[in-house]
């Protein structure tokens, strides 16, 4: 058995889970909802084994390193962290329906990685040969994942708020009736960002520490660094907006969605459109 077969199985399980979540929205059957969650967590378990196996495979090839070194590996890990953060929020706050808006992110990531990205295990370039790689990548991606979950919740918030604004009878909507109340969604959005913001902060700090250790500058306004700071500014604004009258609710939801858009640009856009120190799979 190879890690690549298991990654394919993961993608398939995330697809089934996404379909089950849509069915859950339509049928409101708690059994369908439970099976959607279980399929997602099963997929996460298979992916965990796949990541460990890929790690081992790189050692078998003679240049062992953590599977966090190129775009393929990072996208796969991103999908893993999204399900992890979603799992924590579901188990803690018991709002299963959120999965319908989060699983598609993980499915999209896995499908893109499996179909569109080069999946070969490459030896590490000198710039990445450091233990900081592990700390930096794990903290950043856990943060990104929490922001993905917050973005899914914010989309639910805006749909629900619009439906409640349109019809005077709040309980009318069929699918939307499944959603938690907007007050709960607003709170969940905040809670997800409360997980993401400290992790992003740690990700930026470990990145700065690594840069200082490897190049002698903790901050050089490289596009990747700058965009991570932009994301940090947006979520800092979100946190301050929470305690300011007139900025809660819809505006907070929009800030969360804009924050995630900036996160995705920081993660992918910078590599695709701008040049800098973070060319995944390439050298410096």
């Amino acid at each position, binding site marked *: 058995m190879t890690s690549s077969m298991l990654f394919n199985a993961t993608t398939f399980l995330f697809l089934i889970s996404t379909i089950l979540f849509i069915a859950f929205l339509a049928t409101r059957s708690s059994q369908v909802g439970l099976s959607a969650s279980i399929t997602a967590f099963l997929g996460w378990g298979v992916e965990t084994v796949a990541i460990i196996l890929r790690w081992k495979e790189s050692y078998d090839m003679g240049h062992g390193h953590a599977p966090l070194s190129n775009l393929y590996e990072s996208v796969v890990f991103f999908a893993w962290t999204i399900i992890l953060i979603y799992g924590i929020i579901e188990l803690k706050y018991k709002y299963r329906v959120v999965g319908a808006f989060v699983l598609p992110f993980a499915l999209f990531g896995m499908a893109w990685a499996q179909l569109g990205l080069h999946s070969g295990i490459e030896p590490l370039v000198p710039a990445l040969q450091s233990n900081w790689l592990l700390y930096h990548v794990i903290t950043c991606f856990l943060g990104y994942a929490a922001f993905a979950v917050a973005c899914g919740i914010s989309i639910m918030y805006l749909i629900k708020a619009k439906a409640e604004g349109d019809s005077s009878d709040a309980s009318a909507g069929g699918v939307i009736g499944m959603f938690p109340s907007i007050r709960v969604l607003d709170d969940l959005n905040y809670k997800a960002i409360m997980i993401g913001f400290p992790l992003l902060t740690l990700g930026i700090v470990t990145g700065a520490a690594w840069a200082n250790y490897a190049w002698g500058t903790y*901050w050089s306004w490289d596009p990747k660094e700058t965009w991570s700071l932009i994301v940090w500014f947006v979520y800092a604004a979100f946190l301050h907006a929470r305690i300011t009258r007139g900025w809660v609710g819809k505006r907070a939801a929009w800030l969360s969605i804009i924050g995630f858009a900036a996160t995705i640009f920081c993660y992918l856009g910078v590599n695709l459109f701008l040049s800098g120190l973070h060319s995944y799979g390439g050298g410096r």
Partner: protein
Amino acid sequence: MSTSKRGFVESLWEFFCSLKLSIVLLIGLALTSIIGTVVPQGNIPPEYLQTISEAKFKLYQSLSFFDMYHSWWFMLLLYLLTVNLVACSIKRLPRVWKMVSEPQLVMEDGLEKSLANTYEFKVSGDEAAQKEKLKGFLRAEMGEPVVTEKDGATHIFVQKNPWCRLGVYVVHLSIIVIFVGALIGSFFGYKAFVNIVEGTSVDTVFTQKEKPIKLDFAVMCENFSVSYYNTGAPKEFKSILTVLENGQPVKGYEKIPVIVNDPLTYKGITFYQSSYGQAGEGAAYHFNLRRRGGGEAVHLDLKKGEAATLPNGAKLEVLESTQDVRQFMPEFSGPAAKVSLTSPGKAPESFVVFKNHPEIEEQRGGDVFIQYLGADEKLYTGLQVAKDPGVWVVWSGCALMVIGIIMAFFMSHNRVWIRISGGRAVMGGTASKNPAAFEQKFESLVEKLKKL
């Protein structure tokens, strides 16, 4: 006049204390920061200049877009944010500090009504013994209680993590500490660069603006090497460095290997492996030449850029060379040279000769067999040089920020009171964060209290 002046100062103060200003500044910083990721910073590549018009270039230059993170207006935004967070903290800290240092020990009716969690119960029997029992109960559940007698009622108060309310201000302070660290670095530190040819030493490094900085010691590069993976991708760039004081090697700083991600620090100045290249001058290539089908081998030393005339009249010249050919041709290893051979009356032919693979030359055919012995070509190592006395201040600021965020996000100030008077008691509780979780905790307290 004086009232309007005071009005102005007050409204200025209010302006700087406002959270809306914080939000506007944070979003403003986020938006303006984008410019520097799209417009090149520092040295502008000529290809970029061709893509923008003269007028646009002048406009960008006047707005300092090519060095925007150090421009006056970006600095102004950062200073405004600093003033804003200092003002906000000054305004709000005293109230929070009072809450932490002088907790409300007494639960009066007004406070009781404002609490989300209350529970009323009967106290029968000996009141003094009951008070001790309740005190012991709270001590076991939450921490050391404080008892206050007021207006004939007994108030038992206990709290957990009161200082976590200061978390926000710790984060604000940490941002200022990081700024201070950055300022120390920019005033008392520098970033520079130096190239050292193998076997030589230098005592002067150069900043980005080519300004020389003299060190009070010298650094010698004993050797530089590159190793490769089987795929031809570089595996390791390694300089062997020795620190010299007055021309003598310093103990403990002799023949130190410096690789990417593992620098050398001496007297607060750190050297980072950054680049390398061929020193070029004085390189010599060594060959053994013989006629195919037998004959004595003739040794040939060839300088870079020179052509040698062989006994048969042909001209031999080295076009380019490498110490390890694997990066260009992963199937081969070792030194190799691309040579040009011009036999009399023929067009020049160029081919590669390998030190480790004479069989390739065997297959080439032709009049002369060229055995490549290698070159005594020297490499130079390119080192990034940095001195930053403010870096530890920055790290303290970062640590403080992480601690502050944990305090502010993940810790809750929980308070519980029990008031006993006239055979009845009321327990009330409140938390600064996560009311749902505290409600559960309060319910479990009530359950335990019932069994007491």
